[in-house]
Every structure is written in structure tokens, then in C-alpha cells.
């Protein structure tokens, strides 16, 4: 009798638990979005800006501006912590479910074509006709935001690259200041002169290897590829990746010359997974005489970002265009660009309101503040000489902004990281083993990319 009573009580308790569980799950099963006037905005909270606080402040200000202009509209900010891969992965996972897909998202432009193919993004062509700021974007940026003839993203900040050189070290070595190298041979000669006169200094900072991911490639080897005699990375006609070309051989030969003559920074620094961020302090500590690096350094060292503070930067470092291999290209600039874009989700229930948010974010004031806070060049050409931007990190900001029209975008298709890893393996091999023949380094890259993508996805470009 007692056991029967106990069993009944157990059944009742179990039933109550199940009902409670169902009630809880049904409550939490509601879609995360709010009403028609609420838009979800996803952004990288740690990685994209030069500090998490600056990111929070900027996005909150844009949300406040938007809500003030559009009474009744609400913004739900969705910060995504972590690094580059974390942001991309999280955004992809959010997009997979229409109930979690953001209305507006900040995405890296190297993934744009992949996301368009995923049917995650809403075309913006109809909205852009009324956007004055879009008309002031350089053609290179417009092209970067276009996939299959339609614009799916609008850039809100770009990185460009050039040579940073230490003026006191150049003076000590008897090298000219200002310095304007015309070819890669000029760069090597200057590095060699530094090495001979100041053996304790790292003559050249040029990132390589695989551990830094596509960021290290963007701020290192990709610039040389862009300035080589055969700069094609992905052949649009054949839809194949280039794994052996005169251009790639020139790039690897440059790395080889640096390594053989002991002109490169230590491998421990170049191959560190945090090599891009580490360079902020290493350069402020004046470890390297010449560096291939992005525009961000000038902004990183300002009082407002201070990571680290380096108020003597304008007196210490000069900047020069990285030339093309033989100096024969016009313009003689080797620079790739890469940045972050704003997009509208294909599943957005209110794309018009989402566009109004983007329009607010692209105001002159907001584009300048995001450029200064994230270490970017604003894509709107009219802002390059605006004192709020140019005086934020003089003379660097204006110099790097003017490189944007001549900078080349990197492929924005999903297999790009595989090709980037292949090139990283080749450069890493040379950095670690300076005697590596170019043929062997090319083979490392070719074998890896072929193994990952298949022989039908790669090609060799003959000289």
C-alpha cells in the first residue's frame, strides 16, 4: 500500500516536472527578435576595434543616433566577442536560423562572396541610388562590395599597407630621408645597409607563416603578391587558384633574400600567432628598421587608443609606398586592402529600417570616428583630408588613405584561407630554413593547396 502511494507520488512529481519543463521550453521558444520596429545589429565587440570600449561606444552612439532619427524604432545590439574566426563562425551560425539572423551585420569583406552564395545577404542596389556617400567611394572599394553584379555590402573602413621606416636608423645608416624606394631591390639594399651599420636592429619586419591566419597574409606577403609581375591569386575565368607563377616566385625570392642575408626579424616573432598585434609594441620599441605593415599603426599609437602610447611616432617613423617588383607598374604601388562591411540579412523582416541604420552609420561623423577607433581608412574619399581624420594620426592617416584607390582587394571566396595557408607554409618554410630553394617552397604550397582543394581547382601560370 505504502509502495503504491510512493509510486503515485513519484508519477505526480514526474508529471509536474515534465509540465514545468514544457512550460519553460515553450516560453524560451519565442523568437529572439522584437516587433517590426526592432532591428538586430551584430558586430565584433573585441577584435574589430582597437579596444572593446571604443567598439561599445561607437555602436551605442550609432544606435542612439538612429533611434533619435527614427522615433519608435529600436536597436538590439548583438556584440560578438572573440577573434576573427570566432566572429565569422558566430555570424554564420546566427544566419543559419532566420529567427537569430541579424538585420544588420558587420562582416569582413574577405567572406562576402561566400555569404552571398549562402543566400544570407540582401542586395543593396536599390538603396544605394539615394546614398551620396556611396558615390564618393573609390571604384576599388565598390568593386570589392559587388558580387555577381550586385552590391551586397557597404564598406565602413579599410586597411591599406605600405613601408614604415625608422628615420633615426636610416640617418645613422646614411640612407636618405624621406625614403622613396622604386623597386624591391631598393628595399633589400636599404635593409642590407641597416644590417651592416646597426647589427642589433632587425632590418626588416615582413610577416609570414601560417599561424597569423589571413590577417598576417593581408599585412605581409599579399602586398608583395599584389606588386609582383603576375599578381593573380584566383583566376576568374578558369575558376582556379594560382599555386605557381612568376609572381609567386618573385615573392618567395624576396623572402629568401631577406632570410639568407639575415635581414628578417626573428622567426619567433614572425611566426607567432599574434604577430600582427605584437607588432604594435615591437615597432613602438623601435626593434625594426623597415616594416611592411598596415595603416593601423599610426592610430594604435595615438593618445586616444594608446596601445601602446607612442607620441614620438611622427618624428620616428616615415612611411613610403611599397613599390612593385621592378618599379614598372603605374602607379608603382603594391598594397592590398581589406576591411569590414555593413550588410542587411536576407531574412530581415524590415530591410528598409535596416538600411536607415546603415545610412546613419555611414554619416561623415560616424565614418571618421570608426576609422580612428578601429584603425581604418574611411571609404568616403571626401573624408581623407578632413581634419578630424587626418589630424587624428598625422601624417600617417592621409598618406594611407591616398593608397586606397590603387590598393587591390583579396579574393572574397570561401576557399581563400586554403590558398593563404599554402602561401603561409611556403613563406614560413623560408623564414625557418633560409636555404630552402624557391622550387621547394613552391612545391610546399602547390602540394598543400592541391591536396586540400583537388588538382582541378589549381593552376600554374607560366612566365
Amino acid at each position: 500500500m505504502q509502495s503504491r502511494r510512493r509510486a503515485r507520488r513519484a508519477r505526480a512529481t514526474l508529471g509536474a516536472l515534465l509540465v514545468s519543463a514544457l512550460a519553460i521550453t515553450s516560453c524560451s521558444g519565442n523568437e529572439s527578435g522584437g516587433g517590426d520596429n526592432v532591428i538586430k545589429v551584430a558586430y565584433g565587440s573585441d577584435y574589430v576595434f582597437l579596444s572593446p570600449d571604443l567598439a561599445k561606444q561607437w555602436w551605442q552612439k550609432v544606435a542612439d543616433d538612429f533611434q533619435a532619427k527614427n522615433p519608435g524604432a529600436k536597436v538590439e545590439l548583438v556584440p560578438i566577442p572573440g577573434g576573427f574566426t570566432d566572429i565569422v563562425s558566430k555570424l554564420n551560425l546566427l544566419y543559419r536560423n532566420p529567427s537569430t539572423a541579424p538585420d544588420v551585420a558587420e562582416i569582413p569583406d574577405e567572406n562576402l562572396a561566400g555569404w552571398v552564395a549562402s543566400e544570407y545577404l540582401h542586395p543593396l542596389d536599390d538603396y544605394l541610388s539615394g546614398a551620396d556617400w556611396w558615390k564618393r567611394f573609390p571604384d576599388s572599394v565598390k568593386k570589392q562590395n559587388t558580387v555577381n553584379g550586385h552590391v551586397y555590402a557597404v564598406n565602413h573602413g579599410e586597411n591599406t599597407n605600405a613601408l614604415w621606416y625608422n628615420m633615426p636608423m636610416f640617418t645613422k645608416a646614411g640612407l636618405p630621408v624621406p625614403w622613396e624606394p622604386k623597386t624591391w631591390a631598393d628595399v633589400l639594399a636599404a635593409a642590407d645597409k641597416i644590417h651592416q651599420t646597426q647589427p642589433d636592429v632587425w632590418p626588416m619586419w615582413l610577416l609570414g607563416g601560417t599561424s597569423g591566419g589571413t590577417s598576417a597574409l593581408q599585412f605581409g606577403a599579399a602586398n608583395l603578391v599584389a606588386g609582383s609581375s603576375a599578381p593573380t591569386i584566383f583566376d576568374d575565368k578558369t575558376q582556379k587558384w594560382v599555386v605557381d607563377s612568376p609572381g609567386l616566385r618573385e615573392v618567395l625570392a624576396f623572402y629568401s633574400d631577406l632570410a639568407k642575408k639575415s635581414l628578417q626579424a626573428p622567426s619567433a616573432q614572425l611566426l607567432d600567432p599574434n604577430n600582427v598585434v605584437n607588432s604594435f609594441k615591437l615597432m613602438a620599441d623601435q626593434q625594426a628598421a623597415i616594416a611592411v605593415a598596415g595603416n593601423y599603426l599610426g592610430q594604435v599609437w595615438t593618445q586616444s587608443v594608446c596601445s601602446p602610447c607612442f607620441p614620438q611616432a611622427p618624428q620616428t617613423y616615415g612611411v613610403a609606398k611599397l613599390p612593385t617588383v621592378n618599379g614598372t607598374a603605374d602607379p608603382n604601388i603594391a598594397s592590398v586592402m581589406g576591411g569590414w562591411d555593413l550588410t542587411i540579412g536576407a531574412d530581415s523582416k524590415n530591410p528598409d529600417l535596416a538600411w536607415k541604420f546603415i545610412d546613419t552609420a555611414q554619416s561623415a561623423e560616424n565614418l571618421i570616428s570608426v576609422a580612428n577607433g578601429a584603425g581604418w581608412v574611411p571609404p568616403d574619399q571626401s573624408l581623407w583630408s578632413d581634419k578630424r581624420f587626418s589630424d587624428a594620426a598625422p601624417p600617417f592617416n592621409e598618406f594611407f588613405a591616398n593608397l586606397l584607390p590603387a590598393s587591390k582587394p583579396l579574393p572574397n571566396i570561401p576557399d581563400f584561407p586554403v590558398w593563404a595557408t599554402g602561401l603561409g607554409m611556403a613563406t614560413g618554410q623560408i623564414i625557418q630554413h633560409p636555404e630552402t630553394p624557391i622550387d621547394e617552397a613552391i612545391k610546399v604550397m602547390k602540394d598543400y593547396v592541391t591536396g586540400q582543394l583537388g588538382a582541378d581547382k589549381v593552376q600554374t601560370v607560366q612566365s
Partner: protein
Amino acid sequence: MSTRVITAGTAVPGPDETSTLPHPSAPRHDRQRFQKASLPLLFPAAALLIVLFLAPIAYSFYLGFTNLKLTGATARHHRFTGLANVHRLISDGVFHESLYLTAIFVVGSGVVMTTVVALAMAVAMQRAPAAVSGVVGIVVMIAYMIPPVTIAIMWVAAGTPGGVITMLVGQSQADILHTYPMLLVSAANAWSLTGLAMLLFSAALRNIPADIVEAAQLENAGAIQRFTRITLPLLKPTIVTTVLLISLMSLANFAIVFLMTGGGPGTATMILPVYSYQQGFFFNDLAYGALIGNITVVITTIFSALFVRFSRRDS
């Protein structure tokens, strides 16, 4: 005179107990049996296990046979592709290398480094004053408790120019981390796990009967003889279970390797968990990354089964 059938595992009643023998059809109390009443009580744990563990693993196995990508045309509209990924896996040179590197990492750091060092420390601590063994125990446990991020930073600092290891080998500007990457990530892994293994060995050493050791001493057995003929044989079950446990923990150790080298330089430390992550989240190939992860799950399951089997035998 009554006849009784004695089966294996059945207790034989004494002469005075024969009169209290239960009827053959009465419930037996000599072994645990399944009771239906326990089902509701097992339900919450079983549901959690199914929803949070078995279902995701089953889904991951399914994903390994699809063409799902993180981005691209098959991100939303993926389909079952049969053995296509398996064929790719079979011919994937980096995967073959990754299997080999994983074996080196697990055996080198888990089996050899951790076990040998932990056993040596446990034996040494056995005769050390209580204060010394207490301090050493605390120190090695701290090493075990430290988060992988901190361990990775410490070992990167120690293995790069100006670090402790480079100074110890007399080459302060050497880049040991990138010259011997597998050795260094294995050492970091072993360093983090030695504390746990040492505690397990210390507990087992305390259980070795003192009279056996004393008898051996009376027979003039030397220290080495006592260790090889008494200590090691009696520790064998603990050594086997510890090796399996440490191997399992090493197999799952993604963080230290990824943070120290990112799987590089090149593919020099591309162990299976790192390769799975690279394929899934860096190369956007979720299906292939899942398949590589599934291989790790299979290997881990084999180790787990062995661990459970040896643990039971040990107990």
C-alpha cells in the same frame, strides 16, 4: 537431505543457514537487478545524456557524410554525400600526418613524459619529509589547475628567445618553440598533467603492503630489485589506468597546442583536434571538420572503453 545448485557468484550458505534458504521463486538479493521503479528516477539523467551528449555526437557523425559548409552554396542547402568525405580523408596527406602527429603527441607527452616524471616524483616523495611532499604536491597540483591559456603563454615565453628554456640550453637567442615545436607542445601538455598522475601514483604507492617490502629487504633485495619486482608489478593496474586517463586528456587537449603554435609551423603540430578546427572554422568546411572530429571521437571511445575495463579490473 536437500540438494542445492551452486552457480558462479552465488554465496554458499553455511550449515546453520540452510533452514533459511529462500524459495527458488522468491526474489534474489545476491545481485542487483533492474527495477522498473527506477526508470522515472533515471529519466532526467538519461534525457540530459541523450540530448546533450549522444544526440550531438550522432548529428556530428551525420554531418561528416554531408557537404555542409560554413559559408557558400551548401551552407543552407547541404545534402548527404555518402562516402565522398571519407574518400577525401583517405587520400588527404595532411590527415595522415595529423594522425601520426597525434600519436606522437599522445604517446610522447601523455604516456612517456607524464607517466615517467609523475612516477619518479611519486616514488621520490614517498620517502620525503611530510612538509616537502606537501609543498611538492601543492606545486604540481597548481600546474594541473592552471588554465591552458596561461600554460600556453608561459611555455611560449620559455621557448622563444630570452626565455627560460633557451637560457637553460645555453642559446638565449634560439627559437626552440619553432625549431622543435612538437617537443615543446608535448612538454607543456605533460607539465600540465604530471600533477594529476603523481597524485594517482602516490595514492597507489601508499597501498603497497609494507610487509612485502620488509620481507624483500630481509632477503637482501636492493632498491632497484624492490622497485622492479614489487613496486612496479603492484602498481601495474594504476599505471595502465593512469596512462589511459592521461592519453584521453591529451587527445582532447586542443587549447595548449592551438594557442602555442596554431598547428604550425606549417603542419608540424597539426594534431587531430586542431586540424578538425582548421577545416571546420578556418577553411569553412564544417562537414569535413566534423568527419575528422568523428575520428577523434572513435579513438577516444576506444581509449575510454579500455580505461573503464582496466579500472574495473583494478578495483
